[in-house]
């Protein structure tokens, strides 16, 4: 062999290098620089953060490649970008642009209500959202190299992120309690492919890296998700919708590294100013929920 690119190992491998880190939503090169200086392990290049997507309404699409390219030119950390669920041409465009990771995201308006993107043929890796183990395994079966629990983006309310992370781990613990001959029926119940399900049972965790997303607004929120078993966190609106983004970004990075050390968490949480005002997820109508997009 000479060299092989775009393999499942290198796709999953980049996510492994991001573990224990914070991926931050940014909409300008200046914000990307602030994120990098604060210690972000990657940035998500967007046209609007989820809270503003919510406020604006209408159809949310892939960001202007011009914005993404300028952000790629500004920082040395990996740059991710979002495409709509099922919109494989947006994915092709973003791959051609050279982004490092693609998020097939429920935060944008879905392009296909029946099918997610077949992610295997792409050379760049995909991260996808999930609410429970079955959804995670469906995405892995389609070729996702990284998973994030969905939470409820743009709310600053952690409750859905907690629900989804607990659901994934509940599903894994249940798998481990089952005898092998009951796994096909469990796969049927979860509506999940059997092979990644077996691999998950053997490993005692998902076979890909799993971050938490959707509602993280404080260092304590980030550490909560880490203690619940996340490999790292995405912070979207929580940083740039707060009073003073740079110190908050830096504090969340330090909190994720030392998520099990309450003394450090207390130290980094001091004097950060007002967090984003937020939106209680319970107060949202069914149509306003983003997490229910995709299947």
């Amino acid at each position, binding site marked *: *062999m*000479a*060299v*092989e*690119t*775009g*393999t499942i*190992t*290198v796709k999953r*491998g*980049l996510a*492994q*290098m*991001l*573990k*224990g*880190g914070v991926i931050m939503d940014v909409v300008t090169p200046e914000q990307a620089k602030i994120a*990098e*200086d*604060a*210690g*972000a*392990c*990657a940035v998500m290049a967007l046209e609007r953060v989820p809270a503003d997507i919510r406020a604006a309404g209408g159809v949310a699409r892939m960001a202007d490649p011009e914005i993404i390219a300028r952000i*790629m030119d500004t920082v*040395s*950390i*990996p740059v991710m970008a979002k495409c709509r669920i099922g919109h494989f041409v947006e994915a092709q465009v973003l*791959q051609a642009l*050279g*982004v*490092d*990771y693609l998020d097939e995201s429920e935060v944008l308006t879905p392009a296909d209500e029946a099918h997610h993107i077949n992610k295997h043929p792409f*050379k*760049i*890796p995909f991260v996808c959202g999930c609410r429970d183990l079955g959804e995670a395994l469906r995405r892995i079966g389609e070729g996702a190299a990284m998973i994030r629990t969905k939470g409820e983006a743009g709310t600053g309310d952690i409750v859905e992120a907690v629900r989804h992370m607990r659901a994934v781990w509940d599903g894994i613990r249940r798998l481990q309690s089952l005898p092998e001959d009951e796994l096909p029926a469990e796969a049927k119940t979860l509506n999940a492919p059997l092979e990644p399900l077996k691999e998950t049972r053997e490993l005692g965790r998902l076979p890909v890296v799993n971050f938490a997303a959707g509602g993280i607004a404080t260092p304590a929120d980030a550490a909560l998700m880490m203690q619940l078993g996340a490999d790292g966190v995405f912070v979207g609106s929580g940083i740039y919708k707060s009073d003073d983004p740079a110190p908050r970004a*830096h504090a969340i*990075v*330090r909190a*994720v*590294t*030392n998520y099990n*050390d309450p003394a450090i968490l207390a130290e980094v949480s001091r004097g950060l100013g007002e967090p984003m005002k937020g939106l209680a997820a319970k107060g949202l109508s069914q149509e306003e929920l983003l997490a229910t997009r995709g299947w």
Partner: protein
Amino acid sequence: MTTIGVLSLQGDFVEHQAVLRRLSADVRQVRTPDGLRDLDGLIMPGGESTTLCRLIQDFNLYDPLRAVIKSGLPVWGTCAGLIILAQRAIDLDFPTLGALDITVRRNAYGRQVDSFETNLSIPAIADGSSRPFHSVFIRAPVIEEVGAGVEVLAHLPADAGPAATSTVALRQGPFIATTFHPELADDDRFHRYFLDIVRQQGRGYTPK
């Protein structure tokens, strides 16, 4: 018992830990200067080099890590860990630890789409067989200059594209470094090689 510290600020430290445990080493996750006490060896894992440098400063680890290097404790850096051990890292806005007389350029193969796997011949870790070492390069750095006191352990093969024949593994005294990730390979020979260096050294390190 041999105790290996793994710098656990960010990155794939758990993967290193898993291989070391398989090889019956005692492993400690290091996040504070105190964690560097009584180690027999230290691994700097893969991750994002700017993030790791930021956190080394935030948690006051820079001077203690310099002291570890100065003491001659065996240290191994993989990918981002190699960048932090280098004397010269191009375009990095943070000071490095200066253990290795090399010049390194970050993300020099291109973006993630250019990350790759290949087989390497590494005589230093040979176990009697000629089995190649399967190596995974993730947004890897390129070593542009190697000082006279540095022993090159592996090159990319001649048919490996634009960066063919560049140095990807090296040793300088008690320090080793790889631009790829042996912790992602299903092959523990590189970790065994490091543990052999640690055992030859044969003493624990205690910071003053």
